[in-house]
C-alpha cells in the first residue's frame, strides 16, 4: 500500500502530553516521532495543562524535523523534505484546549506555507485508524475499544472517515485515570498503568474481589469511580485494623475488575452488532492482562482481535496521519484554515469542519 498514488500525509498530535509527528502514505508508516512531557507531570499525579502546552511549543518544530529526516538535517533540507508532503492532518479534538491549539496553529502554518490541504481530525478515531499501519486495512465494519487516561469508549466503525458511532462510554473516570488514582493510593508511580500491571503479576487473584462497575446493566457503558473508592476503602480499612495492605493483591484484584468489564463489554458489542473484528487501542491497550483476556474472550466468541503494538497505542502523530490519509482517500473536503480546536469533538465526526 505504499505506492506513490497515495498522498504523503504529515500528522500532528498535541491533544494531551505527547507531541507526536508522523508521516504516512496510505497504510504505510514512514516515520513516527514523539516527544513526551510525561516526566514533567509525574510529581503532580496527572497532566498539568499549562505544563503540557509549554512543552508542545518547545517540541513542535524539533519533532517535525525528526519526522521528516532526522535531527541533523540542515534547515534547507527540512524545507525541501516538507515540500514532498501532500496534506497535513492534525488533531482538532477532543483534548486539552491549549495543547490542541499549539498543534493546530503549527499545522495551519505548514498547510499554508506548503499550499496543501489541512485535515483537522478526531483523536479517538485516530486511535482506531493507526491499526491499519500495522495490520493493513481495517475490516468494515469493526468494533473498537479505546482505553486511555482520558477516554474509555466503545465504537462501531463502519468506515473510518465517514461512519463512526459511539456504542458506549465511561460515565465517570476513564480506565487509565482509574489506574493513575489507584496507583497513587498504593504509593506506586505515575502513570499508574505499568506499575500496577507489574505488581499484579505477583498478586493472588483470589485474595480480594472488587466490584465490577456497570456489570450486566445491559448497556455498553463503563464506570470506574466506584471501583477506585472500593480500593480506597480496602486500603483505609487495612490501616485502621493495623494490617499492611498487600499491594500485589490489591493491584491484581483492581486490574481484574477493570479488564473483566472492558473485555466482556467489548465482546458483547461485537456479538450484539454481528461484527467479527475488534480493535483495542489507546494507552491502556499496552496492558498485558487486557491483551491476554481480550485474546481469550475474542477467541471464544469467534471474534478476530487486532491490537496495535504498544508504541502505536499511545498518542502519536502517525495515528493522525493515518486518519488524515483515510479522510483524503474518501474525498472529503479539507478543513478550513479558521478551524477551531474542539475540546469535546464527538467521535461521530472523524473530520472537523
Amino acid at each position, binding site marked *: 500500500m505504499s505506492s506513490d498514488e497515495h498522498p504523503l500525509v504529515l500528522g500532528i498530535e498535541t491533544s494531551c502530553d505527547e507531541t507526536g509527528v508522523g508521516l504516512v502514505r496510505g497504510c504505510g508508516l514512514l516515520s513516527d516521532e514523539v516527544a513526551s512531557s510525561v516526566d514533567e507531570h509525574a*510529581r*503532580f*499525579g*496527572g497532566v*498539568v495543562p*499549562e*505544563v503540557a*502546552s*509549554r512543552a*508542545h*511549543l518547545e517540541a*513542535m*518544530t524539533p519533532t*517535525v*524535523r525528526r519526522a521528516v529526516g532526522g535531527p541533523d538535517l540542515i*534547515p*534547507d533540507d*527540512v*524545507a525541501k523534505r*516538507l515540500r514532498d508532503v501532500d496534506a497535513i492532518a492534525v488533531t482538532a479534538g477532543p483534548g486539552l*484546549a*491549549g495543547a490542541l*491549539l*499549539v*498543534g*493546530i*496553529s*503549527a*499545522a*495551519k*502554518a*505548514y498547510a*499554508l*506555507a*506548503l499550499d496543501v490541504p489541512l485535515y483537522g481530525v478526531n483523536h479517538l478515531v485516530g486511535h482506531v485508524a493507526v491499526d491499519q499501519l500495522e495490520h493493513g486495512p481495517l475490516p468494515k465494519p469493526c468494533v473498537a475499544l479505546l482505553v486511555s487516561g482520558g477516554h474509555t469508549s466503545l465504537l462501531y466503525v463502519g468506515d473510518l472517515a465517514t461512519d463512526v458511532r459511539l456504542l458506549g462510554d465511561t460515565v465517570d473516570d476513564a480506565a487509565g485515570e482509574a489506574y493513575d488514582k489507584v496507583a*497513587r*493510593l498504593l504509593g506506586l508511580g505515575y502513570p499508574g498503568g505499568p506499575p500496577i500491571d507489574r505488581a499484579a503479576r505477583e498478586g493472588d487473584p483470589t485474595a480480594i474481589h472488587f466490584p465490577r462497575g456497570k456489570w450486566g446493566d445491559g448497556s455498553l457503558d463503563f464506570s470506574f469511580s466506584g471501583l477506585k*473508592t472500593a480500593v*480506597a*476503602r480496602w486500603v*483505609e*480499612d487495612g490501616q*485502621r485494623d493495623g494490617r499492611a495492605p498487600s499491594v500485589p493483591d490489591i493491584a491484581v484484584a483492581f486490574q481484574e475488575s477493570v479488564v473483566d468489564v472492558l473485555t466482556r463489554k467489548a465482546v458483547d458489542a461485537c456479538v450484539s452488532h454481528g461484527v467479527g473484528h475488534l480493535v483495542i487501542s489507546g494507552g491502556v491497550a499496552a496492558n498485558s492482562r487486557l491483551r491476554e483476556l481480550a485474546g481469550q474472550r475474542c477467541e471464544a466468541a469467534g471474534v478476530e482481535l487486532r491490537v496495535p503494538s504498544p508504541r502505536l497505542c499511545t498518542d502519536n502523530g502517525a495515528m493522525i496521519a493515518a486518519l488524515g490519509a483515510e479522510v483524503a482517500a474518501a474525498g472529503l473536503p479539507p478543513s*478550513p*484554515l*479558521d*478551524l*477551531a*480546536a474542539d475540546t469535546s469533538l464527538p467521535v461521530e465526526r472523524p473530520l472537523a469542519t
Partner: protein
Amino acid sequence: MLLLAFDTATPAVTIAVCELDGDGARVRAETSSVDARRHGELLTPGIREVTREAGVTLAELTHIAVGIGPGPYTGLRVGLATGHALAEALDVPCHGVATLDALAFASRRDAPFIAASDARRKEVFWARYEDARTRTGEIAVDRPADVVTSGLPVIGHGAAMYGDVFGQPPEADEPLYPTAAALGEVAVRRLAEGRELPDARPVYLRRPDAALPGAPKKVRQ
C-alpha cells in the same frame, strides 16, 4: 527584506507585511482585529489575506517576526507555533519582538511613559520606556497598584482596565494594543541596523499553575 510580522499576545490578532524603505520600514499591508478567544482561528487566514493584499507570495518572504509576549499564554503560543512552522517550511529566520515594545512603538511617543498589558489574575505586564523606541528596564508582572509609575502616563489595554488605579483619563491609554505594523517596523529597523532581536521564544514571566497533590482523600467517615 520582506518581513511578515504578527502578534497574538494580547486580545488583538494583528498581522502586517513590511519591507525596508530607506532607513525605515514601509508597511505593505496590515490587519488587526480584537477577539481574545479566537486567535487560533483568525491568525492563519489573516496571514493569507494580508500577504495577498500586499501582493506577495509566502515564498517571497525573507523574514518572520513574531510577538513573544508576555501575554495570555494560549494566544501567545498561537503566534509562536505559527511563526516557527512558517519559518521552517519557508526556510527563513523567525525573530522575536517583545509585545510591549511593539505597543510602545505604536504610540509614537517621544517622552517617557509606561506600557502595560493585561496579564489576567488582576495583574499587568508592564515596562518603562524613555520614548517609543527605547525600553529602559525589564518587563515585569505586578498588580496595577504595585506598578511604579512615578507619575508617568500609562498606555495600553492594561492601563485602560485599571484606569481607577492609575488615575488617568481614558484617552491617555491609547494605543490599547500593539500593531503588527509597529512590530514589523521595530524588527526591520533593528535588522537593518545589524542589532540583535530576541529569539522567537515565549516570555511567560510566571511558572505554570500547578499544585502538588496532597494525601488521598479519606473515603471512610
